[in-house]
């Protein structure tokens, strides 16, 4: 009895010591996060309540920046563009990646090579990808000219990145092109974790490839799919690089996103306080998505 208590005490003290050691190991990373994320985030929250221009003292203005934000058509237009961007990214790359991964999962020879090929665009720097696509979409020597020269009917004078209606979808599709291979790899990894016997059972029941995908593959990777959807929403809210490189929010604001508008307010108009309020609002929207994700996890999906 006494020996058992001693043993448990010893075991407990080892566990406690390990926990303390673990905490010690975490300290540098926590400190880094405090310096890089928590401190500046608190500062951002503070500056969003001021009229700070980036230099000099900041005057307290209360909620004025948020009131202004809610009354600015420019902000709503940018937010609407973010929603369009999100809509495109929730459908096109996920759809292509799902179908691609399902097809790739069915073949054995060349799978690795194809996976690498599809993944390759994701490894190319966004400035390089942007430059390539700017040339590919050039109205005089790009894809449309090529299609036109081989007899495909192209609307006369169509300039994809220069037209109000087509600029945002065009930039979004460039981002999709760079991204979908990454999603494919994620989906493929998830699909490879599905028990093969489930497919065998489905085949015995007479399921064809589509039914297999619908009734076995999709439920099998559902947690991953939810994760990809959540991360896609967050990425879409934070989207910046391709728009800034390719169109800088133009033509005439047609591709302005909240992030590019925020950059302009902070570093062109020197309205840092207002830009901070914009950034914080975007963070809150992202937080809602993250909380939703956490709730979903607690419901029992191991994502």
């Amino acid at each position, binding site marked *: 009895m006494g020996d058992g208590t001693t043993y448990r005490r010893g075991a407990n003290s080892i566990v406690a010591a390990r926990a303390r050691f673990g905490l010690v190991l975490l300290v540098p990373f926590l400190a880094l996060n405090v310096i890089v994320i928590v*401190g*500046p985030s608190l500062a951002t929250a503070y500056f969003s309540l001021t009229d700070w221009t980036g230099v000099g003292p900041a005057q307290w203005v209360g909620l004025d920046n948020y009131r202004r934000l809610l009354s600015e058509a420019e902000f709503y237009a940018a937010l609407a563009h973010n929603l369009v961007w999100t809509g495109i990214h929730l459908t096109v790359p996920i759809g292509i990646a799902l179908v691609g991964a399902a097809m790739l999962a069915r073949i054995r020879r060349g799978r690795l090579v194809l996976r690498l090929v599809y993944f390759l665009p994701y490894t190319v720097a966004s400035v390089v990808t942007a430059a390539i696509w700017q040339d590919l979409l050039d109205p005089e020597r790009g894809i449309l000219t090529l299609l036109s020269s081989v007899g495909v009917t192209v609307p006369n004078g169509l*300039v994809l*990145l220069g037209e*109000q209606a087509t600029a945002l979808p065009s930039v979004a599709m460039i981002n999709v092109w760079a991204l979908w291979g990454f999603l494919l790899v994620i989906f493929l990894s998830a699909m490879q974790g599905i028990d093969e016997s489930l497919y065998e059972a489905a085949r015995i029941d007479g399921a064809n490839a589509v039914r297999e995908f619908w009734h076995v593959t999709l439920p099998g990777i559902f947690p991953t799919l939810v*994760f990809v959807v959540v991360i896609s929403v967050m990425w879409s809210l934070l989207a910046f690089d391709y728009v800034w490189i390719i169109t800088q929010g133009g033509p*005439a604001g047609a591709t302005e996103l909240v992030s590019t508008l925020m950059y302009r307010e902070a570093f062109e108009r020197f*309205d840092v306080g207002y830009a*901070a309020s914009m950034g914080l609002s975007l963070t809150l929207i992202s937080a809602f998505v993250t909380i939703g994700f956490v709730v979903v996890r607690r419901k029992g999906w191991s994502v």
Partner: protein
Amino acid sequence: MTTTISRRLVLRGCALGSLGLVGGLGSVLTGCAPESGSTGRPGTVTYWSALEGAPVRRYFAQEVVAKFAKAYPGEQIKVSYKNSHDLEREVRLALAANTAPDIVETNGPAFVPELAEQGYLADLSGYAKQLGWNDTLLPWVPSLGTIDGKLYSIPIQFETLGIFYNQTLFDKLGYTLPENRADLEALCSELANQGITPFAAGNRDFAQTIEWFTSVFFSNYAGPQLMYDVLTGERPWTNQVLVEAAALMQDYFQRGWFGGGVERYFTTSFNKVHADLAAGKAAMNMEGTWFFAEVNNFFGKAGGNNNDWGFAPFPSLRDEVPYPLYPVGTGGTLSINADSASPDAAAHVIDFLIGDRKKAAERIAAFPAEFALPLRFTADDFPTSMDERIRTAYVDLMTATGRGNIGYTNWTFSAPKAAVEIYEKAQDLVAGKLAPDAYMAGIEDAFQQDLERGFTPVVIDPQVNNG
């Protein structure tokens, strides 16, 4: 399932960091020291320069950094090169974090008043007097950097906007350079009928460059006095003359005279603009004198054609406006950090750059765009090896501005919020999304906010006898 941090996530994190959400403000708060901040070592002058490209940086190292060290024993320049698009942002963050270099370069006089008001910049008046800067700078230049009677900045990279034209094409078709609106419109119509784009143009590489057009249309339609009154708040941006100027710019864009159409303008790169001009696909290109640095790469043997180029002022767009008129601009300013440990040495650096006209002219001859300082040059100051067209352009520019025939570039004379409104909404204007009167009303609104914040730059008075 484990989540890995993706490259894109990191990239976007960095992007947002730079927006001030995380990193930008963070570096201010935590005082993260950017590279090459003020060293505190007397005699060593830190300087963040926006000079771009290896050749000009090599030249600067040889002709300025090395020769300065010889001229001033015990003093040296420690230069760090920054992307010109990012320099203003980095300087502001560094000033707020007390890690800015000894010599503070800004994007232009419009950015100086706020920094001076906050006490970040040293008063240069004493140095100007002691080192005789007023005798070498053009007479109106010191006023650009003077706030409440104190000199805070010296403009660098003096520039103007004008027409680069394909001389060979003009000669072949027998066209003459337009000097007024009627001639310009007749020429553009004729060129368009011939299937030649009147002006090669595009802002794909840098959307903000649409302000070249607003600067020219406002200046050459309104004229010096009206623009001066508007920029100083004496008259509103919504006055009828400027609304007409905006309408004219919208009309020319809609006719396809700039870049062959609005959509093409938004997707055409500078490289293509210059190549089209040199090849004769376009007859003219409305651009700044910084293009002197590159123009010879596109024409003649270097450009793979037999064409030649010329430069001329943009036509007057209203009878009341004089010709020639040059919209004046500066690509940046130099100031001394108020917290510099080496203010005297920093002043010596500025003096080294502006004090000797002949040396400064040699630097212009080597790199016309980067080292075009607004000094009292005469034709004799420039080396004989210099391109005659460039020399003539600079001398004409000095003469015309001396007579008060000046226009005002957006990036030099517009207050910060108004300046952004002008180039941001100009895209809506030329695309036909915004009416000219609404465009001008937006600018007026932004300008009033600048006035409230006290962020209006000094504007050259065209009535002042500039000598």
